[in-house]
């Protein structure tokens, strides 16, 4: 093919940009996690070698166990909520009725809103003494006493999870809807003629046909949840006493609240390992579609 130079130029320019601003920082992060970084050495590339000291220091932090546990609960809770509710709504909107695609599209506003705004709104909804969620729960008689979602150490993490489920639900629903729409209708009709119940049809047709979609949605959910940051400064700031702190917010606090960039980098590297595992699953499950 003639003029291949044009294509190479196009790709090289963008890949060089990505390499400089994503690839190199990534490696630099790993390097910093093995160095002593303080205010004096911040400006130089060659710093005293620290070996695994930073990793030992992180593991020895008293809040390490709590933060890891919170991260696991945050990820599992958010993904479960987003996926189950998203799948339920996707199944509902997959029924043929007037306006279904327009109304479904409305749900996606949560996805384009700035995370800080979503966090601010939920922070007010979940407020203990004058929040509307408590008021609704009390009106319907589900609870007697107001629940202090944000300041109760046992619940603060769940306050952020609730907001995150709201935020991610629509995207899950949209992707699952696309998967549902691609299942041929006549499969269901044939099964119905054979006398399969609604549950049997779901179990033997929908789930197997959706396998790759579900894999991609779950791994995207994991990636998205590990990327979720904005809700924490908006709702709980990781508190009270780190009970709602997760790895991504902790790493940021280390770097930009305590100015301990080496520890911030170290937590990031640990997190990265997790994210990379998820992304391999994601890349594998979308490979056939993406490569066309």
């Amino acid at each position, binding site marked *: 093919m003639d*003029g291949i130079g044009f*294509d*190479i130029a*196009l790709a090289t*320019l*963008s890949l060089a940009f*990505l390499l400089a*601003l*994503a690839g190199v*920082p*990534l490696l*630099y*992060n790993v390097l910093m996690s093995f160095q002593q970084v303080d205010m004096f050495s*911040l*400006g130089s590339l060659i710093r005293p070698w620290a070996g695994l000291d930073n990793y030992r220091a992180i593991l020895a932090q008293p809040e390490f166990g709590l933060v890891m546990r919170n991260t696991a609960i945050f990820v599992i809770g958010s993904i479960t909520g987003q996926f189950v509710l998203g799948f339920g709504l996707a199944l509902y909107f997959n029924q043929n*009725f*007037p306006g*279904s695609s*327009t*109304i479904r*599209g409305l*749900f996606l*506003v949560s996805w*384009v809103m*700035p*995370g*800080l*705004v979503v966090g*601010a*709104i939920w*922070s*007010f909804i979940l*407020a203990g003494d*004058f929040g*509307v969620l408590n*008021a609704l729960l009390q*009106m319907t008689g589900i609870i007697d006493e107001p629940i202090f979602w944000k*300041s109760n150490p046992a619940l603060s993490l769940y306050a952020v999870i609730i907001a995150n489920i709201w935020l991610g*639900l*629509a995207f899950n629903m*949209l*992707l699952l809807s*696309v998967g549902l729409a691609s299942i041929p209708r006549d499969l269901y009709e044939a099964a119905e003629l054979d006398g399969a119940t609604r549950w049997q049809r779901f179990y033997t047709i929908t789930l197997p046909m959706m396998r790759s979609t579900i894999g*991609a949605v779950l791994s995207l959910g994991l990636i998205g949840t590990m*990327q979720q*940051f*904005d809700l924490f*400064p908006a709702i709980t700031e990781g508190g009270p006493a780190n009970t709602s702190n997760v790895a*991504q917010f902790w*790493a*940021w606090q280390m770097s*930009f609240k305590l100015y301990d*960039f080496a520890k*911030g*980098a170290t937590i*990031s590297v640990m997190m*990265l390992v997790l994210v990379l595992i998820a992304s391999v699953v994601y*890349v594998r499950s979308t490979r056939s*579609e993406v*490569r066309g």
Partner: protein
Amino acid sequence: MNRSGNKWALLAISLVFAVIYLFPLYWMYITSVKSQSEVFATPPTFWPHSTDFGIYATVWVRRAVPSYMWNSLVIASGVTAITVFLGTGLAYVLARHRNIWIDVGLFAVLMLQVLPASVMVTPLFVAFNQLGLLEWPRTAVILGASAKAMPFFVVLVRATFMTVPRELEEAALVDGNSRPGAFFSIVLPLARNGVLVCAILTFMSAFGEYVYAKSIIQEPGLQPASVGLQSFLGPNTKDWNSIMAYSAMYVTPILGLFVLLQRRIVSGLTSGALK
């Protein structure tokens, strides 16, 4: 069985779902116009007794909304410009060719898509500091956020380019067009809508960017609206009607854009992210 009646029932229930889901947005707007005392009323009023739109003017001035919004606009425009300029070409190349290098490039882009901003911000900050780029903090944020936004843009736009028939391009080449000529006069116009939708999505998410701006921009006069909002969101805040008014001013332009382009955004997203 009455099938059409059934359909209207399904529609009605789906509207109930939508109302429940969109309630937080309603609550934001309605709280913003309540009086201070009504905000704290128990039980809360679901329709305000008295409305006070003056809060918008007060917050606009006292919270320096114009400056914050301007900075958000600058950052979002910069990110969108860089992402579209660099990302479109890459997406095109990744869509047009098939070989081992393309596979490697595609894999790299997909991997970059998953990097959390909170992981990248530490090395970026330290590196920008060493390069002296923190003297221009908004530029630094634009560069970092562009690298964050580009992989997603490339994945979506690549899907758009895949739908442009290769034959059209080959015909243009036979007619004596140069390769860049065929790209700019044939392929790009045909993919215009898809590129535009992805550019708008990039703009929307950059308009709400928080992590990089909070970490890199120290001077309040250069910070975007997300950082401005966080600055009065302390754990013990009581100023909820001001916060909701600020949020409403921040989010309404995006919501307007979304409502206008909803159909296109949804189809653009579904074609690229997953099929």
